[in-house]
């Protein structure tokens, strides 16, 4: 029983494009399931909107209000047009994390390339927005106010490195949480099987039940943290100090 076996990628359909391997894998299948399920939920909920919301409509409206409040709180009025971006990111990650909690499924957010791709895309968009709004003044971002001119050659590389490290730290945060949590679940499940001949076999099982609940909390929390940090970075680009 290998606890890392759950992260293996299998090819479902072999595809090749100009020498690049773009096979349809179990990871792509899970992403597809999440996107289709979320689209169905949102379309079904908003098709017949009534003044007094039905249960489905209430779920969707609540989630929209949550994201729009988060954006307004962190960015302000200018952030209103970025609500769809944050909304899509949040629900894509939340869907992936929660789908990973279903037995025999696959957690695509536990692969660093997926989270890094998301984070790099967001930071590229944010940098483009920053340059579009402020023009070349955006480069002042790397020179904090009140720094003595003697220290500028030292501070600028530090600020540039910490700006460039943002996608990696966003990606690693989500990836490490999902990887560690799911590995721990499998390790404790393995304990309860190897201890099955002793009378205390139920101890790791109870721990595992608690960990499953904990993992569901982590799934929501990490999606939230990813979205809120994207908001904070977007705020840095839009409202420069």
């Amino acid at each position, binding site marked *: 029983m290998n606890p890392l076996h759950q992260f293996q990628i299998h090819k479902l359909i072999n595809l090749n494009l100009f020498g690049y391997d773009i096979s349809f894998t179990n990871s792509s299948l899970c992403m597809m399931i999440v996107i289709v399920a979320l689209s169905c939920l949102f379309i079904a909920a908003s098709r017949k909107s009534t003044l007094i919301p039905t249960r489905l409509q209430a779920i969707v409206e609540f989630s929209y209000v949550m994201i729009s409040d988060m954006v307004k709180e962190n960015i302000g009025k200018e952030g209103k047009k970025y609500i769809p971006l944050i909304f899509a990111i949040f629900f894509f990650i939340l869907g992936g994390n929660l789908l990973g909690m279903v037995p025999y499924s696959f957690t695509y957010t536990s692969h660093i390339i997926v989270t890094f791709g998301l984070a790099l895309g967001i930071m590229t968009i944010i940098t483009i927005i920053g340059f579009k709004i402020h023009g070349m003044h955006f480069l002042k971002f790397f020179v904090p106010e009140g720094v003595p001119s003697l220290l500028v050659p030292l501070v600028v590389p530090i600020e540039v*490195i910490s700006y460039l490290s943002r996608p990696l730290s966003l990606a*690693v945060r989500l990836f490490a949480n999902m990887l560690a949590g799911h590995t721990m679940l499998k390790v404790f499940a393995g304990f309860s099987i190897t201890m099955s001949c002793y009378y205390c076999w139920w101890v790791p099982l109870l721990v595992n039940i608690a960990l499953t609940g904990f993992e569901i909390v982590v799934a929501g929390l990490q999606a939230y943290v990813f979205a809120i940090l994207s908001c904070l970075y977007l705020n840095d680009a839009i409202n420069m100090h």
Partner: protein
Amino acid sequence: MKQKNQKKSESEKLKMGHGINIMTELFSVPVTGFFIGLFLDNHFETKPICMIVFFILGIIAAFWNIFKMLKKNY
């Protein structure tokens, strides 16, 4: 319960993940510095100099970021 948590300020909510934030910061900033150094080295053919300098700058940047984050919240 959930409604109550929503009312908290944003910094309050992020306090839960400070340990993880520090961990990721300590990992990702020096690694980014290292890769920038590697890129510059390959560009100017000055192998280990930029790598070492940017790695050390990355460590400084990581601690500086952690210091700023903790100063803002406590």
